């Protein structure tokens, strides 16, 4: 069992996308989740999916900065996974007896709801990026995600100068935003 300090540290690590922290969390918690999923009509694959999703929820929480653990990390993760799995079962319309809980749980409905909403946005962004095609996608990724400078980008993509690259980037950005917001506004 980890102390509160250790768990806080793990969360910080997770927020920073630190592979070691992620590995520790996996090692400490995955088997309990797997046992739970398998006991409730799932497979190891389902457990992996659910656990990954729960890690993303935890990641979002950890990044938000406002998150302090009010229970053990293990309990939080277990609760999230349990909720996610229950939802998945309902969605698949699989026969679903009262789900068996072997451990303590905390209410996590808000977290799940937030995560689902945000996850949709994530999908919108991904699909919008796919839709604008190349070289726009790579260009925008290089600038916004990889944080490359305009001269670097101009060089890499073969534009004559940084200004040209910038104009191109702007055009791409407008297209991306258009597609993204169109999806975003249509979602309801």
């Amino acid at each position, binding site marked *: 069992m980890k102390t509160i300090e250790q768990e806080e540290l793990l969360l910080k690590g997770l927020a920073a*996308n630190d*592979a070691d922290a*992620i*590995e520790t969390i*996996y*090692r400490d918690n*995955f*088997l309990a989740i*797997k046992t739970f999923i*398998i*006991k*409730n*009509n799932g*497979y*190891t*694959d389902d457990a*992996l999916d659910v656990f*990954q999703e729960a*890690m*993303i929820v935890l*990641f979002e929480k950890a*990044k938000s900065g406002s998150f302090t653990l009010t229970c053990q990390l293990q309990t939080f993760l277990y609760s999230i996974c349990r909720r996610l799995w229950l939802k998945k079962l309902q969605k698949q319309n699989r*026969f679903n*007896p*009262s789900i*068996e809980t072997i451990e303590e749980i905390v209410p996590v409905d808000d977290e799940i709801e937030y995560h689902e909403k*945000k996850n949709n*946005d*994530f999908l*919108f*962004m*991904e699909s919008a*990026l796919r839709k604008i095609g190349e070289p726009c996608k790579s260009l925008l*990724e290089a600038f*916004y*995600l990889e944080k490359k400078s305009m001269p670097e980008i101009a060089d890499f993509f073969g534009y004559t100068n940084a200004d040209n690259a*910038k*104009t191109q980037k*702007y055009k791409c*950005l*407008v297209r991306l*935003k258009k597609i*993204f*917001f169109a999806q975003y506004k249509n979602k309801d």
Partner: protein
Amino acid sequence: MEENLLFDAIERYRNGQMDEKEKLFFEELKKNNPEIDQVVAEHSFFLAELERMSEQKKLRHNLNEVENKLINEGVISGEKGKTKSKLIYLWNRYQRTIAVAAAIACIVSLSTALSISKYSESKKAAVITPLVDHKLTQFEYKLNEIEHKLNDAATAPVKPKFEANFRATGFLVDRKGYLITNAHVVQNAKNLIVENKKGEQFYAEQVYLNPATDLAILKIADTSFKPVNELPYTFPKSAAELAEPIFTLGYPREEVVYGEGYLSAKSGYYGDTTSYQISISANPGNSGGPVINKNGEVIGIISSKETNADGVVFAIKSENIYDALKEVKKEKDISIKTPTVNTLKGLDRVKQIKKLEDFVYKVKGN
């Protein structure tokens, strides 16, 4: 201000790349121009989403890396996909069905020493109770002993003391000493003894066991056993009919017990086409007993009953026996001949039973 310049400004503002003067100017601009303020809000939101997506992608990448690492180390235990063991899978199924049953009625177990781990391995698990009697009470055992002493004195060869922990039924399929019973009866038994109506006991061994069909074939391996008279019953060529009257003989007690009923459905538990549903009074110990129609044809073998319903008993269709016999012929080169002449047809029930009871055996073991 042109849009591209505005975007640029917003991005620099967000990234903290503006100096104080420019920052103040920009904030002033937002405040005084609702339109610009809106663009700022929208673009900021958009950028935040973009960043979030990028971070999540990185996270997912890391998650997958860690997953793969742990899978390789065996921490997650398994090749993806088919990792769930058969036993766990069946256990799940079993649990699920239990839940259904619990929703309909509360479960009444009729068998006392029923070990769940034992039966969850068979597809007949779930709410159905195999009809083996694991409950040989102290009293019955004593009674047994006395009975045997008397018998031993009278007829049967002396047998070493044998403490059985279950009891079921079986019946001869070949006069040379081959018996049919349920797989769930004998599958975990170390020693098997069969006993006829006269109380003669013989050691028996398994020659065939199929938990899927829940059929087992035993061979009486005792030298004291002599081939019996021709079996009076046969196995039907066609499927049994709904509502057909049926009867059985079995050993829910130490003494042979007769029961009668009718065929209530042409399929078994959850539409299992390899068995019939019959309505008959069956209790632990009846497992492996023959289900016989009025013409003296064995249409099935009693295997289990639904725990939460009364009189819902399942019998394996006797056509499954043929597959079992073929298997035995192939695997062990033992040729078992099913009886061909039916001498029960046309007799009244009492006479039928009289002829029949010598061929129905008590199966015991530990």
